[in-house]
């Protein structure tokens, strides 16, 4: 164990050394020994935050703990905090965030909602970190999964809560978009949020309102949602008047691409009005995109052509 430790401190991806430790630990399986392995890999990660072997070793240890010990929930919380600490120094660290996403499958619904709340501030301070927003999407999807499997009387309450979470995230995202001009990660997050709200939650509303409890009614008006999004896109596109400012130009491009995304994602059955509104906006958007992002001309042409009249 001493030799492998020395080796790993020098060459952290030396898999054979990590494996030899796994072999020895498998024969003992005591919590203190497993915790030691977490300490060693945390030490390695403090200076090599991208070490694939170190992250993989942690997952192996946690799987061992999950089988034998009841401290799992507490360990999951600590792991999540560890990732956040490492992510502070190592931006968009794929392995770190992947590890955090992996933890989500071990979380209870309460933990999922708690994580969403706790990680919000951090995300708001790291708006260029696409990985942290992907993590939020993972949490939100996990929460939604839970709803789909809920069959009890509380299902409409659960739905209302879930819808609130989604709506809050959209509002918060919009405030960040206006504050931090031209950040791709924020717009990508919005693509996901709108798409899900319109495609999946609207259909749930229909199902829930049939069981109707008046207290539980939620008004998802797709029309006004779309109007709101179009307004937002319009306000971001017109700030391009002085195209010298890179951030504003990026904002215009991202908002325009976002609108094209919506036109592609909204299925026909949502109503002709919406399709008309989107189509009306598409012409300007395409012109602007081709001017400021000519490298992707073929893509813009294709996407617009996708929705042209038969």
């Amino acid at each position: 164990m001493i030799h492998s430790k020395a080796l790993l401190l020098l060459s952290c991806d030396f898999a054979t050394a990590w494996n030899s430790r796994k072999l020895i630990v498998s024969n003992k399986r005591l919590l203190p020994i497993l915790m030691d392995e977490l300490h060693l890999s945390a030490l390695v990660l403090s200076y090599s935050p991208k070490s694939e072997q170190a992250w993989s070793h942690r997952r192996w240890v946690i799987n061992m703990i999950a089988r034998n010990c009841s401290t799992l929930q507490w360990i999951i919380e600590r792991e999540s905090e560890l990732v956040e600490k490492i992510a502070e120094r190592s931006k968009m660290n794929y392995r770190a965030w992947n590890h955090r996403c992996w933890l989500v499958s071990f979380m209870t619904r309460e933990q999922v909602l708690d994580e969403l709340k706790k990680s919000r501030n951090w995300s708001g301070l790291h708006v260029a970190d696409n990985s942290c927003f992907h993590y939020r999407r993972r949490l939100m999807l996990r929460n939604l999964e839970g709803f789909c499997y809920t069959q009890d009387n509380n299902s409409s309450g659960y739905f209302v809560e879930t819808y609130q979470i989604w709506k809050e995230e959209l509002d918060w995202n919009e405030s960040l978009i206006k504050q931090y001009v031209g950040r791709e990660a924020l717009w990508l997050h919005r693509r996901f949020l709108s798409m899900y709200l319109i495609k999946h939650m609207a259909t749930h509303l229909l199902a829930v309102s049939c069981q109707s409890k008046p207290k539980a009614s939620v008004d998802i008006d797709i029309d006004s949602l779309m109007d709101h999004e179009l307004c937002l896109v319009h306000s971001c596109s017109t700030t391009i008047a002085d195209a010298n400012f890179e951030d504003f130009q990026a904002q215009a491009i991202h908002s325009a691409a976002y609108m094209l995304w919506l036109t592609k994602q909204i299925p026909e059955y949502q109503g002709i009005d919406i399709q008309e509104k989107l189509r009306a906006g598409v012409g300007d958007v395409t012109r602007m995109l081709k001017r400021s992002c000519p490298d992707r001309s073929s893509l813009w042409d294709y996407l617009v052509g996708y929705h042209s009249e038969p």
Partner: protein
Amino acid sequence: MGELAADKHVKYIISVEKKKDSFESVVMEHLRLNGAYWGLTTLDILGKLDAVDEEDVISWILKCQDESGGFAGNIGHDPHVLYTLSAVQVLALFDKVDILDADKVSNYIVGLQNEDGSFSGDIWGEVDTRFSYIAICCLSILQRLDKINVDKAVEYIVSCKNLDGGFGCTPGGESHAGQIFCCVGALAIAGALHHVDKDLLGWWLCERQVKSGGLNGRPEKLPDVCYSWWVLSSLIMIDRVHWINKDKLVKFILDCQDMENGGISDRPDDAVDVFHTYFGVAGLSLLEYPGLKPIDPAYALPVDVVNRIFFSKK
């Protein structure tokens, strides 16, 4: 536009191959077999595979084989699918795949398929779509693809598809160009590309091109030459490569060369390494840069090597 300093790169790769005692080499000792694949495939694309001693390379590779049938990154290390694929690919370059006991190697890989169709990298159980690609690619070269449950393998890969059309390393994982290459490549080899939403994924992939012409691997990241391979080969496999600006990408790759000492780095003016040298040259080959052998986007081997495997009479 600059030019490809092919001779310099050949010299660079050979010098790296010889320097076994440098600190850099020792610290990378555990993945030397991957290094062999990157270096030798680059030499082959540049038409200079004969610059190395074939016997030497092959005998060393065979010493990396473990009794389980899998290959390790170097002699005495633990086996893993990562090195098993590199071993088979390097042998393919020399048209010596048949010196292997194909059943033995296949059994190692087959034993790593899990119930949900995914693949573990080794006996310690880590799952990643990279390992799915490795399994499918390797078994395909060994012509033993029927030994695994291909349908289940495809099903698992599809479960890793995200809402943006991309793929992550496990279900729910963030889309990443490297993982996307692995998933698309695996589906291509398994004849299951119809599961890919080509427009959606093509869109995500072409958004990887930044102003300088280089490609990044995820939103908001810096461009890196290695993505010239992963993004580009994926675009080619789904037939959407016309959605990026190819000339600008060529220029970016050429700017990443060290014109004095040879080798290619991740972005202009950084230090070079074999990994990025391979991906830069492979990317240029996909972009049909003159003087380079064409490379297969799914197998990541020269096209003539792939043809030899599947079309020559045995």
